[in-house]
């Protein structure tokens, strides 16, 4: 019945956006949506937990936009992926989660400027379709790994079904693997 149910099918690689050392004892992967309010709730919790665990933890973010429910989520995800091409993924990631109620086209352009992206390069990247493909690939890897909503977390490759909203529970779950 299980057949590798709820395990990360695409291992974390150099291709991922990661914060923290590659040889960290624990890797936390989040599949998230920039317009999802629960992901917005998770954002500061993950930051606090990361600060507590320090170098023991590597945090990886992958895109899982629920486009039908969240009309701006895909564009926001593609903007973050475009920012990555200019070495600014995490800056953009943070700005998006800190401005979840402002994700319309004009807002995204403002965020791009704020993060210091070169807008011509950004336009070209978006037109080229690379960020779009990247977001789709993340989404599919999530579906195959048993992502069942946003955010979905994986701890060392295993889906975490505990209550991440409780910082202590999340910290303990991560600490236990470390």
């Amino acid at each position: 019945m299980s057949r590798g149910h709820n395990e990360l099918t695409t291992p974390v690689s150099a291709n991922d956006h990661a914060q923290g050392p590659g040889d960290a004892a624990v890797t936390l992967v989040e599949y998230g949506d920039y317009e999802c309010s629960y992901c917005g709730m998770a954002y500061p919790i993950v930051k606090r937990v990361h600060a507590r665990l320090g170098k023991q933890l590597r945090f990886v973010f992958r895109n899982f936009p629920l486009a039908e429910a969240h009309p701006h989520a895909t564009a926001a995800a593609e903007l973050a992926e475009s920012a990555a091409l200019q070495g600014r993924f995490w800056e953009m990631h943070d700005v998006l989660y800190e401005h979840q109620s402002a994700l319309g086209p004009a807002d995204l352009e403002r965020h791009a400027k704020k993060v210091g992206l070169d807008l011509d390069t950004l336009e070209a990247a978006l037109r080229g379709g690379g960020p779009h493909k990247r977001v789709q690939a993340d989404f599919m890897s999530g579906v195959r790994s048993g992502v069942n909503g946003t955010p979905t977390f994986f701890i060392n490759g295993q889906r975490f079904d505990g209550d991440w909203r409780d910082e202590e529970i999340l910290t303990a779950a991560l600490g236990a693997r470390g």
Partner: protein
Amino acid sequence: MAPLLNVGATAPDFALSDQAGTTVTLAALRGKPAVIAFYPADWSPVCGDQMALYNEVLPLFGELGAQMFGISVDSRWCHGAFAENRRLRFRLLADFEPKGAMARQYGAYRDEDGTSERALFVLDEAGLIRWSYLSPIEINPGADGILATLESMQSEKSA
């Protein structure tokens, strides 16, 4: 509760209304694989996410030739409002009268609270159950098991 119908069983026939008032029968689904997702109720926590996920994965189910149905004990009117609110692009079946009759036949009825389990079935084009899965009620089962089953069915066919 009777146990969930198992792999290899013939799926029991049903005739239920979707949110538009169209009757859907198992017999009419023959010829194409079908994904049937029982969930406790419209509007309840988690189900929204579960149906939202299927909404996103729907094109992939389509590529694998499968039809997707959500099913709960809610009426077609409730399903209509829920589907519109969540912009669902697939059909929801109303297991409403007699209440939960289909869920009972599939071993997915919850006597304790009068709803259905979070249970998934994948049927092949002949109406045989090829995969079934009972998820803990508070956990959205995701789409990976459904996809893996549909893909293995497709590779059997092309083999």
